[in-house]
């Protein structure tokens, strides 16, 4: 590893805490970012010779704060900047900082930093871009690549988002328990958005460009979980993302087409991610306080635990979807449940379950895909073809459309076989 590589890693891992603390001091995002930037520049000068400080975050906060204060003072023509040698040997000051940083204060700093990215006025795409820029410290270029948009468009998106956040006013008072819980829920939702942005790759060519968003979302969730180690929903969220992302290597075939869960080569699934996901869901369940992320993670865990697709515990999955319907009623949840019902009680029962959803899901690709597949199983080829055609018309990506066309081709072949 080159010198710069370890320093980059140190910056990335210290960033949320350091930037969060600087934001608390200066109460202004731009000033905080400049201070952090300045601290990083000084670190690049001193760390390669002196080695990493014991607590890089504390070092960056201390140096960043002083640098920003100095630039204010310089404006007033007072003391000059202290020489770099003094800054690089922080000794006691660093220990003192670390002491003061301990505990709840920096926890709220990091939560605040994440929370300002979830402002309700910001559309999802801006929330995600802002979080990746501010909290994760990804470059505009990296973010643009992952979003498959141009760099200047992304630059604009981030600038607009920052402007909105600045105008909205950042809440600096220490949150009470209810505010903290609310912030945590919003931050969790935002992290899951980041994940889904990465997960929604349409084919195997996009997947590697977007996968970093999934990794980053998981890193943010682990960070949040370290700050709030006893929050079962944060365990659930982290587990859910790990279990979903564990299947990434099996989600597309060599031609770039989607491979359905039951057809995936399970030996390609990432075992370390599965182990961590299962450990987290086990921990979460002990709290006996179920929430949507935990239930979804529990469903993903049942898929992860099945060595072969036919070993899947569909009865348990059906029950979990029923729980999810209660916690978070949505036609999409019922639609997902229908897949489990079809496995357990047959296509007829599943079709009965989803028929009432038609008015609410009439614009949803996946609804017609599931409906077509169920009709196909029941041998109602004509209706199945109609549903598949509707699905193709609503497909969001070429890969989705191609996947449905495969079903249609199969129908065609069956029809020919029957006729012949």
């Amino acid at each position, binding site marked *: *590893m080159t010198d710069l*590589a*370890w320093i980059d*890693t*140190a910056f*990335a*891992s*210290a960033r949320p805490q350091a930037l969060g603390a600087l934001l608390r001091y200066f109460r202004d995002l731009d000033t905080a970012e400049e201070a952090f930037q300045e601290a990083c520049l000084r670190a690049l000068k001193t760390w390669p010779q002196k080695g*990493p400080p*014991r*607590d890089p975050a504390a070092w960056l906060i201390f140096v960043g704060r002083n640098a920003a204060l100095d630039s204010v003072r310089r404006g007033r023509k007072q003391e000059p900047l202290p020489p770099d040698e003094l800054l690089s040997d922080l000794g006691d000051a660093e220990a003192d900082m*670390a002491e003061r940083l*301990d505990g709840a204060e920096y926890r709220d700093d990091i939560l605040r930093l994440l929370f300002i990215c979830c402002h309700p006025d910001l559309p999802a795409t801006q929330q995600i871009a802002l979080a990746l820029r501010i909290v994760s410290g990804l470059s505009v270029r990296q973010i643009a690549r992952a979003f498959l948009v141009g760099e200047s468009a992304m630059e604009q998106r981030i600038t607009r988002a920052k402007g909105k956040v600045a105008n909205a006013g950042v809440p600096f008072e220490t949150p009470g328990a209810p505010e903290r819980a609310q912030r945590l829920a919003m931050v969790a939702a935002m992290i899951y958005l980041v994940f889904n942005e990465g997960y929604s790759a349409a084919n195997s060519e996009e997947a590697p460009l977007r996968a970093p968003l999934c*990794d980053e979302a998981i*890193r943010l969730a*682990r*960070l949040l*979980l*370290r700050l709030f*180690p*006893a929050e079962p929903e944060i*365990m659930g969220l*982290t587990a859910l993302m790990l279990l979903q992302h564990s299947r990434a290597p099996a989600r597309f075939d060599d031609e770039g087409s989607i491979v359905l869960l039951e057809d995936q080569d399970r030996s390609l699934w990432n075992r*370390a991610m599965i*182990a*961590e996901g299962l*450990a*987290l869901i086990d*921990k979460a369940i*002990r709290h006996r306080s179920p929430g949507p992320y935990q239930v979804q993670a529990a469903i993903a865990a049942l898929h992860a635990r099945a060595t072969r697709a036919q070993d899947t515990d569909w009865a348990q999955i059906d029950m979990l979807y029923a729980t999810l319907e209660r916690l978070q009623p949505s036609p999409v949840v019922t639609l997902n449940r229908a897949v489990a019902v079809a496995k357990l009680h047959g296509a007829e029962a599943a079709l009965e379950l989803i028929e009432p959803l038609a008015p609410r899901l009439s614009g949803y690709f996946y609804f017609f895909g599931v409906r077509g597949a169920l009709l196909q199983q029941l041998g109602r080829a004509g209706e199945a073809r109609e549903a598949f055609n509707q699905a193709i018309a609503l497909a969001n990506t070429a890969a989705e459309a191609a996947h449905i066309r495969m079903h249609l081709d199969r129908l065609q072949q069956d029809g020919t076989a029957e006729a012949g």
Partner: protein
Amino acid sequence: MLYAVLCYHNEAVTEAWSKAEDDAVMTRLAAVQEPLARQGKIGPVARLLPTTAATTLRSGVGEPLVIDGPFAETKEQLLGFYTFDCASLEEVLDIVRDLARANPGGSYEIRPIRIFKPGTAGS
């Protein structure tokens, strides 16, 4: 003498590693272990999942208390361990220096082992 080498590092740092970096570190560490394995000097080795996956059972008077996460809040976390069969502390230190070169950062606690039961799970 048997030694356990407990590896401590700030897991926020190791989690910030890219996949490529992580793979490179693992490859370098494997290269250090390989000759030791041939000489029969290396025992069980483990890399632990993040502390967020940990649970602690705190035993005291009455029912033990089960809490989430590791018991101690520290800057560096126990992220893995090695076991070695070495003639002297100097020999272990040489090995650990190699490990530290392969994976810079963090610290290694070298603890002579009192009772050792390698068991069979996971082998």
